């Protein structure tokens, strides 16, 4: 094991509790992560000392708030290696980031008959906005297929992305299959065909170093709450020249440079996108989350999560009657495991695990087209973060054996 990061657990007091009388094992990190005390304290500190509205005030608190709010933006820019902090737009979430692109920039560049390309493994937030755009513009929404392993099929990508394609929008990492997609190659492919590449980084930014300049993506979207920050703050990165031509999605205070009765001029990016009072404490706390992640090091997080996968995936695969989706090779799998136990509905699995204190998700994981593609309605999903331990993985494996036993006994009892 490279370096045991679970020492950082101590910064997450929520993990130190009993659920249904058992030690909590929180394995629902793909839905949202827990927050370290440093982030929680940052929020309190802000409201106990510096709270004011940003960008509008002459007084001392307003200046302090504005400074912290913009410093956090710089931290985000550095975190994903954006060349320019003006390319960082605060949003509510990945979902909002993707919606804004679909309803403004993409709306500006997609015309009738044009094609929008996504993949079979996308999250609803990277599907439904494109369905709407396609409908509005009479454009065509196409899906890149997957290999039998559950990876993106690059041949299919080459076939699907053509001169007709205007937009390619793909998850950087899947929230179900545990795969990381070759965004850099896809960006090249898109650009070669004159299309723009949007990466949904919701499941990547929390787990690995991100370099938007090297990836050469046109837009990159992610959520604070999946990387230690509070809910209600997300990021949209865009190349400066694209943000320049992109229309704002919302209008009002803060984003204007002047307003007359019938017309208004807007500020420059990123402020022209941030109408109204933003989530100031959320942005500042995201800055604190990034400080925390940087302290550990994103490379270390990636390596540790890989170690966890090496430990846990083979053990999961050994359970009789389990099906783990996505690649079976730990080298190709992130620490997010969607699975089913034969004959037991994933909802029942999740309820049973909850009785053992283990929090996993059950359902379609906001990826119904993927479920259809895999001929499923639902799966259970255990998703790990750096504060999880191998022991917790072992407890999951043991509990799954118990669950199997309970339901087969339960069933036979009633016969």
């Amino acid at each position, binding site marked *: 094991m490279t370096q045991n990061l679970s020492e950082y657990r101590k910064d997450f007091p929520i993990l130190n509790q009993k659920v*249904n*009388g*058992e030690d909590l094992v929180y394995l629902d990190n793909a839905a949202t992560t827990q927050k370290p005390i440093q982030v929680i304290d940052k929020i309190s500190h802000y409201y106990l000392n510096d709270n004011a509205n940003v960008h509008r005030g002459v007084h001392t608190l307003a200046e302090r708030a504005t400074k912290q709010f913009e410093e956090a933006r710089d931290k985000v820019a550095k975190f994903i290696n954006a060349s320019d902090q003006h390319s960082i737009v605060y949003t509510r979430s990945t979902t909002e980031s993707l919606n804004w692109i679909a309803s403004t920039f993409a709306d500006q560049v997609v015309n009738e008959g044009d094609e929008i390309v996504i993949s079979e493994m996308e999250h609803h937030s990277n599907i439904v906005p494109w369905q709407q755009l396609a409908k509005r513009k009479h454009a065509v929404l196409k899906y890149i297929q997957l290999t039998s392993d559950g990876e993106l099929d690059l041949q299919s990508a080459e076939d699907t992305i053509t001169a007709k394609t205007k937009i390619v929008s793909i998850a950087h990492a899947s929230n179900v299959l545990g795969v990381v997609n070759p965004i850099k190659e896809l960006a090249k492919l898109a650009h070669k065909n004159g299309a723009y590449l949007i990466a949904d980084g919701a499941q990547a930014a929390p787990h690995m170093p991100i370099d938007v300049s090297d990836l050469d993506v046109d837009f990159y979207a992610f959520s604070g709450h999946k990387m230690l920050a509070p809910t209600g703050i997300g990021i949209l990165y865009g190349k400066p020249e694209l943000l320049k031509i992109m229309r704002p999605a919302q209008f009002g205070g803060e984003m204007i440079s002047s307003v007359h009765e019938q017309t208004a001029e807007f500020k420059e990016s990123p402020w022209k996108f941030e109408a109204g009072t933003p989530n100031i404490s959320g942005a500042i706390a995201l800055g604190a989350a990034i400080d925390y992640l940087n302290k550990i090091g994103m490379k270390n997080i990636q390596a540790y999560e890989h170690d966890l996968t090496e430990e846990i995936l083979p053990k999961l695969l050994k359970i009789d009657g389990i099906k783990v989706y996505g690649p079976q090779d730990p080298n190709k799998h992130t620490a997010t495991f969607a699975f089913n136990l034969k004959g037991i*509905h*994933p*909802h*029942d699995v*999740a*309820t*049973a695990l*909850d*009785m*053992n204190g283990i929090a996993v998700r*059950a*359902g*379609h994981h906001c990826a*119904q087209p993927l*479920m259809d593609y895999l001929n499923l*309605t*639902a799966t259970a999903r255990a998703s790990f973060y750096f504060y999880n331990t191998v022991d917790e993985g072992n407890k999951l494996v043991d*509990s799954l054996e*118990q*669950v199997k036993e*309970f*339901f087969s006994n*339960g*069933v036979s*009892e*009633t016969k």
Partner: protein
Amino acid sequence: MGLAKLNELYKAVILDNANYPQNKREIENVPKFHMDNPTCGDSIDVFSKVSDGVIDDIAFTGSGCTISQASASIMTTVIKGKKIKKARQLISDFSQLIQGKKISDKAMDELGDAAVIGVVAEFPARIKCAALAWHAADELLNKEGGKDD
């Protein structure tokens, strides 16, 4: 606590109905109502054959977890043969029950096997599973009832 508490939820009658659901079939040429559980993607269709305000037959199709399948199965047994008004009253009682609200002894009696599902109130995340088929039946009967008036 561990898995032992599962026995509370997964009682024999529930497992039994889930594994051997009753009235799980289509009824042809009658109205049906489709409903999704957006959390998990489960979905159900409920069919009913009503004449003179009485539910002559009721059935369901679809897939789901133990709780939703058992609940759907039991629902059909409780509702079948009842008048629409009575059936909707029972659905409403059931809905109260699984939300942990107290209902009359008489209502408990009338719900019969369905009353067993009341335990789901202690597993809040599963209330929607228990409710799905009953909600669908209610919507269906609401329409049917409307026609009769």
